[in-house]
């Protein structure tokens, strides 16, 4: 099998790191794209330790120029990108009426515009290459809403819709584009939320039929499925990985 190159954003920590490690175990070479270079380097060492190949590339997904440079750097090294995982994300949980425009902008820039930027730069590379799999990380908040996450859920809802339309436009190029919607996950982002929202973890564990938060590897399995040939007839779809918290 050809060596596949996977470009994973936000790959320096949490779910992005686990996705990178999982894809590397499936013989993909990983471009660990992250705004925090130290974290990206750490992920690269972990992948190398498990016998895989990876490079760290600095990438601020909120800037089209930064994404363009990161993609150029990757293509200069590997000549192609086969798989894109749009994982970079961020949120600040607070009631909508207490939130401020600067926060809204940051949330939309990272969660929605970030994925638009990488698609704009990477889809042409895939079209030229005649192969491509894109997995966009959304959130169950996009599907059912989530108190304290009004703008985040709107941005992630945008990701779900972006996935469907791009899947239609790219189908003629045999590029599959799908969406994974994680439920509440035990990640650095969630731990950050826990510092100012006590009790959220216990409340969620009670509500989830499987009685636990997602671990990053739970999400990585679904991403790996969409990037595999097992899912070659699947496009434009959204898969919740939520321990049964939501069923839409």
């Amino acid at each position, binding site marked *: 099998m050809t060596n596949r190159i996977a470009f994973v954003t936000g790959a320096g920590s949490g779910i992005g790191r686990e996705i990178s490690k999982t894809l590397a175990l499936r013989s993909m070479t990983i471009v660990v794209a992250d705004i925090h270079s130290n974290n990206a380097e750490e992920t690269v060492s972990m992948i190398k330790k498990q016998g895989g190949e990876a490079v760290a590339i600095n990438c601020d997904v909120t800037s089209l120029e930064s994404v363009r440079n990161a993609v150029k750097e990757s293509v200069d090294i590997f000549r192609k990108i086969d798989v894109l995982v749009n994982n970079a994300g961020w949120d600040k949980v607070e009631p909508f009426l207490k939130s401020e425009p600067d926060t809204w902008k940051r949330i939309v820039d990272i969660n929605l515009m970030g994925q638009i930027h990488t698609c704009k730069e990477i889809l042409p590379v895939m079209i030229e290459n005649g192969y491509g799999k894109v997995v966009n990380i959304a959130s169950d908040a996009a599907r059912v809403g989530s108190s304290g996450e009004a703008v985040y859920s709107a941005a992630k809802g945008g990701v779900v819709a972006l996935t469907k339309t791009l899947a239609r436009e790219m189908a003629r190029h045999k590029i599959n584009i799908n969406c994974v919607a994680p439920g509440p996950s035990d990640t650095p982002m969630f731990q950050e939320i826990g510092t100012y929202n006590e009790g959220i973890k216990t409340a969620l564990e009670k509500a989830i039929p499987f009685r636990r938060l*997602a671990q990053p590897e739970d999400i990585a399995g679904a991403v*790996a499925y969409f990037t595999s040939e097992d899912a070659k*007839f699947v496009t434009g779809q959204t898969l919740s990985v939520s321990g*049964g918290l*939501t069923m839409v």
Partner: protein
Amino acid sequence: MDLKLRKKNILITGGAKGVGRGIALALASEGANIALHYQTSETEAIETARLIEENGVKVVLVTGDLASLEDVQNMRTKINRDLGTVDGIVNNAGYAQFKSFFDYQPREWQRELDVCLNGVLHLAYTFVPDMIANNSGKFINIVGDSARTGDRNLIVSAAARSGAISFLKSLAQDVGSSGIQCNTVSLGLIDQGQSFHEATLAKIIKQYPLKRLGKVDDITGCILFLLSSTSDWITGQVLPVNGGHSMV
């Protein structure tokens, strides 16, 4: 990659030919033991069982009408005796009539409801208690996309299968704390050697962004994923394999 299916006992209904046979062989090649259900296609079922055995795994043939709870309970008795308790179920069997609602005679729709909805209830009622006792299990029901989008010529079976989707979501909530996953796979039109007029086929394919009908091995990947340990946090979901035909 080891999907951890070795020596698991998986029941596949409607497994004599087509999609069911494909799924059975894919699972057998991963080392799973197969309980192969058929209703009328005995010759094909025997041939499928022979092909399964070539993988060095155990196979038990069971026959019965899923519309009959008694038949399903007899299936369990035979499987438990010859193979052991069932770890996973793939309900592929179904029954549909292709016509407009007003072309039905009164009660002519009953069989579709009995197989496509009551059959799922019968399987769950009979086999899930063993899974609860084992504190693990995976139940997959296969439906057509018509269950979610409607189809004027599949009006009754689509309704029955939509009911089955809802049933599995509720069941997922009920048995989640026992580590049991219940998911639905929703298919587009699969090429199983039907004879379409060329013009009809072209018209159908136009509705698929990936511009082809599904193949049996498009489905096996999804089933393997849902039965494997990489999808352990996914429950109550509908996972489409439909070439982008619908994106709901």
